[in-house]
């Protein structure tokens, strides 16, 4: 029987010890009329060889594309070592380190992770992970509102990913928290402090500052941070961990530094995988540590004075504090953090910085070459990290479909979420894109744009060709 080790004689012996005739007797406390009929939608079991064939067929059907999409999840090279080590059974099949003495491997690794994240973000402390970047931002909003006690509103620039803003709203709205969206400059693609400073600061707990923002544009983090602090608000930095090796970290923004930093951990060692599992991270100043949600690992000593690691400050958490906990989170994304820690250790600060620089250089090259095509222009004149917005004279969704037919996933259509910008798309070229791939993108985009210019789909419709 798959994964069940019992022999017939063992089953007999076990039933005798229990004192029942059959396994079915063990379910005799379940009312008869509740007993389920046979499963109807679960298919017959198949063996490993057969499921392997099914999965490989489906994977082949999906195929592989040359990827120019970012928007919060990024294709980076993941060294072979990362997942070879991460999927070792001792990491893969352990659980939350409740028994510290039997979990020092996981605990020390989490402590190393917390250290790495604190150093990347320039803040003092980190938790041991949250679900993903979007839900981590929601948790940061909740933490800021708790810390500010009486304030119930948070300022959310609309240069934050539209999906992130939706997720935050969905998670915090039933606690009476209001999110105030801030407009952005359509010239720079950023959130000028002049716009922010028009806001009333009554009842506001925090300002969220994305760096880079959803458009890839760099925000004026120093000025925004100082404005917020001058008005008694907390600052939540929403950052990309790879960028933190190159850009000024939240802990050093403005005169006092951001108070909380959160983000999507996927870029450091986690495959794209259609959206998950990824992990969220959350760091903060020491004085806010009791507002952190989720697991935190602390370093201490054992009875013989040797250093060791254990879960700490558990009185914040649901299994102790129940309805008064900082969050309901229990299981987090431990295995993803295992991969991230190994990835960061392998690359080091210099390696991460080189990845960040190559991403920036590739994106710059891509944006410049695509913007030379007739009907394509680069939006926003501000410094950027590894993404950029292009405005097209055509419907971006149709262009992206045509690129897909050439094996290229070319970007994200922004026209639904940012209609004020017109027909725009967000493109990204990480360190994994080669010059040839970028040239190929340019070639195909040029052909598609010119074909549609000479023979527009609306004309085809009129002529009855399509």
């Amino acid at each position, binding site marked *: 029987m798959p994964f069940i080790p019992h022999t017939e004689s063992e089953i007999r012996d076990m039933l005798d010890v229990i004192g029942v005739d059959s396994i079915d007797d063990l379910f005799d406390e379940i009312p008869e009329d509740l007993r389920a009929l046979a499963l109807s939608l679960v298919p017959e079991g198949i063996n490993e060889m057969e499921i392997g064939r099914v999965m490989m067929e489906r994977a082949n059907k999906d195929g592989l594309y040359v990827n120019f999409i970012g928007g919060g999840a990024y294709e980076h090279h993941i060294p072979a*070592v990362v997942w070879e080590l991460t999927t070792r059974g001792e990491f893969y099949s352990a659980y939350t380190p409740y028994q510290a003495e039997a979990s020092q*491997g996981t605990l020390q690794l989490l402590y190393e992770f917390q250290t790495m994240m604190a150093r990347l973000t320039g803040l003092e402390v980190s938790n041991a992970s949250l679900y993903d970047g979007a839900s981590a931002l929601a948790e940061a909003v909740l933490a800021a509102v708790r810390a500010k006690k009486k304030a119930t509103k948070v300022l959310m620039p609309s240069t934050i990913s539209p999906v992130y803003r939706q997720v935050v709203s969905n998670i915090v709205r039933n606690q009476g928290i209001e999110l105030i969206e801030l407009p952005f400059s359509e010239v720079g693609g950023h959130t000028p402090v002049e716009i922010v400073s028009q806001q009333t600061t009554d009842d506001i707990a925090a300002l969220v500052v994305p760096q880079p923002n959803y458009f890839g544009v760099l925000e004026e983090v120093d000025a925004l941070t100082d404005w917020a602090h001058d008005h008694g608000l907390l600052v939540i930095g929403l950052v990309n961990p790879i960028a933190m090796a190159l850009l000024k970290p939240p802990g050093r923004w403005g005169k006092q530094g951001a108070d909380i930093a959160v983000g999507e951990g996927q870029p450091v060692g986690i495959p794209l995988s259609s959206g998950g599992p990824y992990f969220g991270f959350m760091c903060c100043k020491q004085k806010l540590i009791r507002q952190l949600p989720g697991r935190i690992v602390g370093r201490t000593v054992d009875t013989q004075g040797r250093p060791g690691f254990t879960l700490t400050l558990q009185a914040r958490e649901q299994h102790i504090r129940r309805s008064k906990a900082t969050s309901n989170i229990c299981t987090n994304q431990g295995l993803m953090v295992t991969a991230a820690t190994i990835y960061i250790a392998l690359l*080091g600060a210099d390696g991460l910085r080189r990845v960040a620089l190559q991403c920036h250089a590739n994106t710059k090259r891509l944006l410049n070459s695509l913007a030379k095509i007739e009907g394509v222009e680069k939006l926003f004149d501000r410094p950027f990290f590894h993404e950029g917005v292009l405005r097209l004279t055509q419907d971006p969704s149709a262009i992206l479909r045509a690129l897909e037919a050439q094996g290229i996933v070319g970007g994200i259509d922004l026209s639904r979420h940012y209609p004020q910008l017109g027909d725009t798309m967000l493109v990204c070229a990480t360190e994994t894109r080669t010059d040839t791939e970028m040239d190929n993108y340019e070639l195909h985009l040029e052909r598609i744009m010119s074909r549609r210019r000479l023979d527009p789909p609306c004309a085809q419709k009129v002529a009855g060709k399509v």
Partner: protein
Amino acid sequence: MEVTDIPAEFLREDLAPLPAVSELQVVRHYTRLSQSNFSIDTHFYPLGSCTMKYNPRACNKYAMLPEFLMRHPQSAVTTGQGFLQCLHELQEILKDITGMKGVSLTPLAGAQGEFAGVTMIRAYHDSRDDQRRDEILVPDAAHGTNPATATMCGYKVREIPTDAEGDVDVEALRAAVGPHTAGLMLTNPSTLGIFEGHIQEIADIVHEAGGLLYYDGANLNAIVGKVKPGDMGFDVIHMNLHKTFSTPHGGGGPGAGPVGVNDRLLPFLPIPIVTEEGGDYRWLTEQDLPQSIGRLSGSMGNAGVLLRAYIYARLLGKEGMNRVAEFATLNANYLMAQLRSRGFDMAYPTRRAAHEFIVTLKTLKEQTGVIAMDVAKRLLDKGYHAPTVYFPLLVPECFLIEPTETESKQELDGFTDALVEILEEAHRDPELVKHAPHTTPVTRLDEVKAARELDVAWNSE
């Protein structure tokens, strides 16, 4: 390579202080760290309520095919038809197992599934303009995530006591429900390891008061193929795929907490959900489900975990699914019978174990001063991971023991012998047990120091 076009005001002035080591150093360091862990692959791990069963390697291998790993979540559904087909079939499998009408795979863990479920309860009452309902009822034996979730959803929490037999105190429930009741969150089999006998009566009481019934699927492993939560009267349910569907626990996640609902909650399911039309798969989004409670994460959920669960379900098939509950229950009742015959006290001796059961070491403490935590630590010395200790909170000095179906009789017998040895040691040499563990990489850790002199990140350069 130097940056010339990003102004200095945006840049980091230094290199982040991170490790600078070779690949071999990394491999050796993390390999050695891994070796100081207990895990299912290396040890019996009977952590109650966590369902620590074997994680089949095939599930990992085929979920990690390059086409699945490389696909960007924002790319068009046309680039992921094979992936979406797996998810759609998983949705159907979960509907069948739970007896629910609709399933959304998107919640990222059990607690997020609970959040989605209770938010749907709220959306349902709001849609009927019934805003008086501001209270969620939770049994006192419930997982901490239940009351914490209710708070996150803006509800007050009211605890319902447990009766002497371990069931929900029905009279107390009857007295507690009313026009302010939004719903009741219940685990069945309960966290006490027993099947809630009055479930139909409980469902009627809550429904007649206008509340909805939430099923915490933490213990679904005990009843797969035997009872469907939908048939018990539950309106909404979350499942923990890292438990029942054997996806890895990974040192604390990732999990996956899909939710299932009956007809009246269908419009509120979190998005996205996979739908199939004429052999083509696509996502249902806010355009299709305007009353949805919305998105709960940046993408669609823990896709890689869902693929592993799908592969597991296909490997087991319907017969295998039935065996899960049967052998998990057989193992739990066998281990309970063995321990009872060797002198251990059960918290609920008249009840069948569902897939887990509770031992209370109250007598041992009175006789020797050795407490449950000491016994747990001594088990580590004997090569067994400890069961869940001190949960549920209402049983003194308790072990919640869940062996799961993938453990052999030999392993269970070895565990029984180890516990009996510890019982003897506790009487003969209590200090030996009180100072356990002795053989692990570290001995007992100073948790007070860890909390008082916080050191959560290495501070010297």
